[in-house]
């Protein structure tokens, strides 16, 4: 048992902090999805991705031949924590290739696919930017009922249908797409396949969808006779569900970064409370203390699957447990933070530079965006279904 990081990891932590000091604006607080919402945000994210790539940090756990440094799991944990704490953009949703496309390709991709797709991801190039096409208007939580179809035609597949809520589709060069290749399969999650689709393909259109506060995170994507070379099929035809589960496992294993970004916002809140002279208020003190307990607990929970994996034990439901836990933690932090900011929390985060805005609008942002985060990558409820069924071995509840 040991509750400290090793020397090697702590050295990496200090190196990252040096890097932050040189390359990041001081007192920066990262907000979720902020990269894909504005041109400046995106340019900043891409520039940081390239700098991270030069350090071999962008995909540090990948083998060296693909631009990584074969880093240990715990080094990757440290990077995830630091990047989230300091708000270094370019490691998250916008560059989802680093998080799940790449790792899944390393497991299921052909050598040729790995050679083509991994290097641009590792280099933080625009050609390495991916979006993820799972959800459809009638297939959300029940993803396996998706309707978008791919039909083989010689050396190509022809795709027709629609995806929706596709984050980053307006910026991505590639889409990681799941669609139906066999409509006669016995079960609905059979007969699905994963394709890598060039976003510049003919017949593919991207329409922006604005969220309730006017931000542009996700899109709808239409496919009309879009032709995709057969070599862009990932794994075997009709076995896409398996790849999807692998990728989703990577996508949901985000609790470590989220806990660290929560910590950063909490730290700012505590400082604000002190500066504003609110620390003498018993309710505020109790609320902050209570949050501190939740944050520390979430941090320790997020390490659990890593610790077990190091012992060779796969704890698949833990990622879902922690995603649900973080959904609740986000909600609580947003609620308490905006309550403490009081009247000022009604200011629009899109005008974060206004002279009245506190803490760069990060709590106003969190207040509205944590709701979206509780839906993305599977809603809180769906995560709890997974934990109940696979973690507690209870019968399926729906």
């Amino acid at each position, binding site marked *: 048992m040991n509750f400290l990081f090793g020397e090697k990891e702590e050295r990496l932590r200090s190196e990252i902090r040096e890097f932050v000091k040189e390359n990041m604006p001081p007192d920066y607080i990262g907000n979720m999805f902020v990269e894909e919402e504005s041109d400046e945000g995106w340019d900043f994210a891409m520039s940081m991705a390239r700098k991270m790539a030069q350090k071999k940090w962008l995909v540090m756990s990948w083998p060296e031949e693909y631009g990584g440094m074969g880093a240990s799991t715990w080094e990757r944990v440290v990077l995830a924590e630091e990047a989230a704490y300091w708000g270094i953009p370019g490691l998250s949703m916008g560059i989802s290739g680093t998080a799940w496309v790449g790792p899944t390709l390393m497991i299921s991709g052909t050598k040729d696919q790995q050679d083509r797709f991994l290097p641009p991801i590792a280099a933080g190039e625009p050609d390495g930017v991916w979006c993820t096409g799972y959800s459809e208007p009638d297939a959300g939580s029940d993803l396996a009922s998706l309707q978008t179809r791919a039909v083989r035609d010689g050396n190509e597949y022809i795709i027709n249908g629609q995806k929706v809520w596709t984050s980053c589709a307006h910026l991505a060069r590639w889409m990681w797409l799941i669609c139906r290749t066999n409509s006669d399969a016995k079960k609905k999650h059979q007969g699905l396949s994963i394709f890598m689709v060039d976003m510049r393909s003919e017949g593919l259109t991207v329409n922006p969808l604005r969220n309730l506060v006017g931000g542009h995170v996700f899109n709808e994507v239409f496919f009309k006779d879009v032709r995709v070379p057969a070599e862009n099929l990932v794994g075997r035809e009709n076995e896409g569900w398996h790849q999807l589960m692998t990728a989703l496992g990577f996508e949901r294993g985000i609790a470590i970064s989220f806990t660290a970004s929560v910590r950063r916002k909490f730290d700012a809140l505590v*400082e604000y409370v002190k500066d504003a002279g609110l620390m003498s208020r018993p309710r505020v003190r109790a609320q902050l*203390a209570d949050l501190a307990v939740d944050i520390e607990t979430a941090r320790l929970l997020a390490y659990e699957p*890593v610790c077990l994996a190091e012992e060779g034990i796969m704890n698949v439901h833990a990622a879902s447990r922690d995603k*649900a836990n973080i959904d609740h933690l986000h909600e609580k932090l947003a609620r308490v933070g905006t309550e403490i900011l009081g009247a000022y929390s009604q200011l629009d985060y899109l005008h974060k530079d206004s002279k009245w805005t506190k803490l760069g609008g990060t709590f106003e942002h969190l207040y509205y965006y944590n709701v979206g985060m509780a839906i993305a990558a599977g809603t809180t409820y769906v995560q709890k279904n997974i934990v*109940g069924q696979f973690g507690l071995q209870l019968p399926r509840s729906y």
Partner: protein
Amino acid sequence: MDYTFTKDQEMIRKSAREFFIKECPKDRVRELKDDPQAYDPLMWKKMVDLGFLGLIIPEMYGGMQGDLIELMIFTEELGRNLVPCPFFGTVVECTVPLLKFGTDPQKQKYLTGIAEKGAIWSLAQAEQVADFEAEDINLTAEADNGNFVLNGTKLFVPYAAEADFFIVAARTNKIGDPREGVTLFIVEAGAEGIGIEAMPTTARDCRGEVRFDGVRVTGDNVLGEQDQGWTILDTVLQHAAVFKAVEMSGGAQAVFDLTVNYARERKQFNKSIGSFQAVQHKLVDLLTLVDGLKYLVYEAAWHMNNGTSSRGLNSMAKVKANAVYHEVCHHGIVLHGAIGWTEEMDIGLYHIKTKAAQFDGGLSTLHLERIAAELEAYVPEYRKLYPG
């Protein structure tokens, strides 16, 4: 970071677990509820023979010389199996201060008695307000020719009627900061002038009021320095907070397991109730609480053992335990239905301990305030990088 235990540590867990399952089945726990002694002296003797009482006592005083991780594992199993006995009061609240602050002759005399004979010790601290703050300590100790005379009343004293010794927190100086002017005394339970009355607690855990009516104590029986007792009490409270939280974590895990098993077996509408989503999601919430508590108390105990503990972390462990133990008992019983609300089911045996467990080592109001005080003094990482 490493959440695993060594083989030796796993062995301790295994032998503790097997011992408790064999020696203290739930029917025995039920019987002890109606026994004013609230523990089984024969089982206590076996615990002494196996060295459990001397777990953290050095070999030179007859102990096993174990560390706090071993104590943590043992305490977690004790909580999991719900063993009514004066272990916590004797080992955590009294052995710890004797070890850390006792003189050599005191250690020789008293630690040996605990490790080898299973002497029962009890900390007599709480008075009228019973909130573990220094203002609550008003029992007086008047100096008299190198001796002291104690007058006052202590409440909620663990195993008051069974104790062989008390560590009594007394006021030796009433002027100024209440934290200065507290002195601890080692008092034999049979001393003249001591009167004990049982307090009727739901946990049936043999707590009592202990009255000190002109009780004479020699100067040799001061623990630590005169007027400096508050530091010792603070150390004790931090240990008590962490190890009571460990015990509660063990109990919470047991309650959770009972509940999940019941949800798998119990059928309504021709289905196991665990298949209903409301039930399943509540179980997942409880799992998250119980898992989180487990790692938080491990972390606090590990740092304590490593000499790197912090007041804030120790308080966090107790705040979390106080909340989770309540949640898992309350919702665990609701998930059982009416049968859960009877004496027949084991889950109720855990729930009747809730209020006592929350009190030992400090209630959440006290610990939330301690965490807040730590936050007040804390410099965030980003301020170290970008000084304000």
